């Protein structure tokens, strides 16, 4: 019986062209449905069976995905004639600001980036399903608040936002002010007075 379940689950994972979660898996069974623990055990079994295969079972934000082992991706990439899309600096910076500072308004993104964020760019991110509007900030103009989505995490093979690379820390500003070098000789006297 156990074996059968893992076979069915493997079939589901391979045929769904999207990640599927345990609820999705349970839905295909007639009563009595296998319990979530039984499904989890069967998934572990699939994972173990992948050891000597070219694929692995990966848990990501939206559920599970059978994918090519990371170590083999370079071979697979050669099969693809089209080069994968590259993202512009603007897209990546905007995406990282939304990811790390969500929920965030477009104005706040612009403030940090020091540059206007185009409507086209935001629409592009939303169309890809990586970013969504989660509400409005309660200030004049009611700007939309943006957040990243599960699809964003899925795309990067992540399960949680906390798996994102750590944000470089901001140096302590108090200490910076003391370290500020003196640049103009004429006002250096003034400066040293200020700083000491």
């Amino acid at each position, binding site marked *: 019986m156990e074996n059968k379940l893992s076979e069915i689950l493997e079939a589901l994972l*391979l045929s769904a062209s999207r990640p599927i979660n345990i609820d999705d898996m349970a839905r295909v069974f007639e009563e009595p449905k296998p319990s979530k623990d039984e499904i989890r055990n069967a998934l572990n079994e699939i994972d173990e069976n992948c050891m000597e295969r070219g694929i692995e079972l990966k848990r990501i934000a939206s559920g599970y995905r059978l*994918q090519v082992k990371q170590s083999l991706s370079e071979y697979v990439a050669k099969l693809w004639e089209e080069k*994968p899309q590259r993202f512009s600096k603007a897209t990546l910076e905007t995406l*990282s600001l939304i*990811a790390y500072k969500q929920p965030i308004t477009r104005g706040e993104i612009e403030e940090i980036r*020091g540059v206007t964020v185009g409507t086209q760019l935001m629409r592009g991110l939303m169309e890809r399903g990586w970013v969504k509007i989660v509400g409005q900030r309660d200030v004049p103009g009611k700007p939309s608040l943006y957040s990243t989505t599960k699809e964003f995490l899925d795309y*990067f093979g992540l399960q949680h936002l906390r798996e994102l*690379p750590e944000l470089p820390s901001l140096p302590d500003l108090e200490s910076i002010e003391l370290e500020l070098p003196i640049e*103009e000789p004429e006002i250096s006297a003034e400066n040293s007075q200020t700083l000491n």
Partner: protein
Amino acid sequence: MVEIKTKSPQEKEEKPTPPRQEEMFLATVKGKETVLPEDLYVPPNALEILLDSFAGPLDFLLYLIRKQNLDILDINVAKITEQYTSYIELMESMQVELAGDYLVMAAYLAELKSRMLLPRPEEQIEEEDPRAELIKRLQEYQRYKEAAEKIDTIPRLDREIFAAHAKLPEFSLDTPLIDVPLEELTIALSEVMRRAEQSQAHLINFEELSTRERMSQILERMKSESFIEFTSLFKPEEGKIGVVVTFLAILELLKDSLIEIVQSEEFGPIHIKGIEEVH
């Protein structure tokens, strides 16, 4: 404010000659003739592309700072401002359309520079260094710039991650059509005949009802309806003869492979269906 002493714009449009490397770019900045710093020397067309590679004025400023091998904390506002504005002015003189954001930054830097130069009144001695705000902005921007670069290296779908797929098994969802036994057809005919008998219309103009004509009528109807119910082809008011003509027409069409007779279930209604033919 920058006048480039090379060629006039008109000449350039007609005959674009690539600038030679040894040719020094002379520019007049604020009335003072200066030789642009070496790293500022970029072919005019490339300058626009160069600026395109920056994500904005802050990115551009970070580049200038790095070029001087300086730490953000060590920036010399006067020098940076000068370099930044000379770039911007050079661009403007070449009619490169600049994003407003670059001009905003130029104005901000100019303001900062003047604040740095002005002696501060004694009572405002506690005022924080004017550079602090710029440094704060640069550092904050740099954090996310770095984060963005890190995000770019995360394995992503269809670049490093490839989902595994299997071809779906063949599904047969639509019910297969059942062959119509001939007796079914005759039973259906007798049904129609019986109904025709019940009808009391006897006035029939034989001449008007030729089998060929009926065939065309059925084909005509087939153009708008892909499925025609068998019985609906018969008109009781045409009487027995009408029924026979229609039935013959159907058989003729069937023989010519112009129609198909189908039945979706046993004893179900019989339908006439056109054959998808190559015209």
